[in-house]
């Protein structure tokens, strides 16, 4: 079965989704999804190991070789992403049963798991595939399930957020579709590897330039890159907590992956960064994004909103690392990808626990939580420290690499701005700390207890991962370096 790992990675959660629908008992569906997601996690681990030892894995669907059929092409980059997605999904899912109990009407629990699995499978599919059109198809599966999941939120604003996301997402997807069409038009192929070989021949044409523009804009819409981020905060804030935790940890990562894949692999470095003022554009947008979103985060009254804006800011960091367009910069971006998934997973899941106990994530309701839910709040504090980039947390590791990469490139002012950006993180994290620890509990909230174990275990798993990977960075750094070097064509 080892040769079939790439397809099993996607197909297990994908097939599990309809099976899940057949299970009418929500609890059973939960267990089943957990097992499916856990299997995917296991497979992704094996895949990563296999890729690291023996290089790129190619799997041809239906036995048809590449440009004619669809192939899965797993290199270090995808393998890392697959691992991130399936790991986070499994951990988040662990808490799902408890969480949705409070947030979603009982008759929709099974549906929730079906959609969750679909969304997981689709993200894995986007990452694993080596075919541009297949990306589009799976992108749509993931988007559709995301719209539905977000709309399951309790607040009516969830509906509106989901609708806005739908419009933006569909425009983005259609842009990508146009871009793929133009590429196809010029090369006659849809396979990414094949494209990367055939595109340079026609690189000077205006059509390819347009194709590139459309693909990038489309991806940036999905990515919620500043200034195309407007859909994200509401979507994250009003979705059910589990959904937020899952998406915050994974969805934007997939979009970053696509961005990297298309600019570095498909169009190639020389095209993406020499023909266009992309570098300047992305650095500027990335940094402005960091500052605008962090500042916005400071003024939020809902903690979910706050961290949603913080996500946009963190995306800005990734974009900066990406735009340096050196192996070091890309390593930094990939590391931050991994690390940010851990941070935001932990934070949003902890918020889910808060939501479970007090039914709200308004900052004013956090008063006194430091005493009432000490374990959960400790997790939020550690996650927040990681976001700031305090040493011994993963946030520090990514910041270190990012600043080093920027300095290597001689962009001193950018380095200063990156660090200044994390000062804003201190402010918004500390607002929560002050409210939770230094304000007396609200009247009538004496009965609030610590979150149940089904929350604490996954939350603390992630928190410990935050610290562990902040201290023992061998695994994450090694993989990130291998991935970025493979994209630059240097064998590690």
């Amino acid at each position, binding site marked *: 079965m080892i040769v079939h790992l790439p397809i099993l990675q996607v197909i297990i959660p994908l097939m599990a989704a309809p099976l899940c629908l057949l299970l009418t008992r929500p609890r059973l569906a939960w267990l089943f999804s957990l097992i499916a997601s856990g299997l995917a996690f296991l497979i992704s681990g094996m895949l990563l190991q296999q890729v690291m030892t023996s290089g790129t894995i190619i799997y041809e669907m239906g036995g048809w070789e590449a440009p004619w059929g669809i192939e899965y092409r797993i290199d270090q980059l995808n393998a890392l992403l697959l691992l991130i997605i399936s790991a986070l999904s499994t951990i988040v899912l662990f808490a799902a049963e408890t969480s949705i109990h409070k947030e979603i009407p009982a008759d929709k629990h099974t549906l929730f798991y079906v959609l969750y699995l679909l969304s997981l499978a689709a993200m894995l599919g986007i990452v694993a595939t080596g075919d541009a059109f297949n990306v589009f198809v799976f992108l*749509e599966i993931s988007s*559709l399930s995301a719209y539905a999941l977000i709309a399951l939120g309790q607040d009516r604003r969830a509906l509106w957020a989901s*609708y806005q996301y*739908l*419009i933006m997402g569909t425009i983005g997807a259609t842009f990508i579709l146009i871009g793929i*069409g133009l590429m*196809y038009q010029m090369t006659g192929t849809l396979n990414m590897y094949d494209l990367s070989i055939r595109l340079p021949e026609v690189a000077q044409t205006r059509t390819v330039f347009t194709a590139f523009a459309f693909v990038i804009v489309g991806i940036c819409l999905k990515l919620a890159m500043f200034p195309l981020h407007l859909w994200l905060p509401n979507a994250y804030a009003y979705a059910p907590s589990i959904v937020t935790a899952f998406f915050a940890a994974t969805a934007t990562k997939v979009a970053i992956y696509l961005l990297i894949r298309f600019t570095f692999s498909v169009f190639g470095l020389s095209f993406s960064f020499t023909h266009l003022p992309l570098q300047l554009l992305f650095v500027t947008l990335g940094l402005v994004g960091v500052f605008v979103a962090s500042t916005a985060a400071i003024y939020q009254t809902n903690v979910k909103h706050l961290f949603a804006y913080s996500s946009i800011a963190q995306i800005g960091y990734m974009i900066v690392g990406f735009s340096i367009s050196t192996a070091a910069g890309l390593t930094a971006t990939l590391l931050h990808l991994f690390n940010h998934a851990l941070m935001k997973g932990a934070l949003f899941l902890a918020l889910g626990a808060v939501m479970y106990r007090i039914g709200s994530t308004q900052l004013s309701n956090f008063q006194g939580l430091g005493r009432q839910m000490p374990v959960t709040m400790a997790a939020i504090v550690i996650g927040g420290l990681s976001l700031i980039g305090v040493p011994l947390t993963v946030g520090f590791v990514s910041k270190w690499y990012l600043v080093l990469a920027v300095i290597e490139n001689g962009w001193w002012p950018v380095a200063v701005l990156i660090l200044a950006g994390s000062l804003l993180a201190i402010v918004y994290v500390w607002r929560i700390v002050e409210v939770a620890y230094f304000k007396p509990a609200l009247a009538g909230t004496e009965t609030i207890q610590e979150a149940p174990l089904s929350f604490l275990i996954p939350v603390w798993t992630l928190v410990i991962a935050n610290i562990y990977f902040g201290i023992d960075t061998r695994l994450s750094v090694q993989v990130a370096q291998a991935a970025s070097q493979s994209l630059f064509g240097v064998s590690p």
Partner: protein
Amino acid sequence: MFIGLYNYWVVIVLMMVGFYIVIAHGNLIKKIVGLSIFQTSVFIFYISMAKVDGGSAPILADEINQYSNPLPQVLILTAIVVGIATTALALALAVRIKEAYGSIEEDEIQKQDNLD
């Protein structure tokens, strides 16, 4: 040049009409209609690429030796399905929004959101 490309240009104009409706209109249903037009136009764009002068539909028969390209057609078959799936979901959302807010106008919804 003009003759060779005008077909695409017409399609692009159609696309942009759809796109404009999506971003400029405040009515949720109208937006969905715009999206639908936008997508359908992209489909037309793909299908136009597939056409070969003098070719015929890609169903093998003995007396024909020039076929149009089947691949874009396959892609568009898939894309159409994606389109209707999106439309269905969007409409469902619109219906729920109407129930929740009592309106399907963007500005009115925003106004209500700002209130609470």
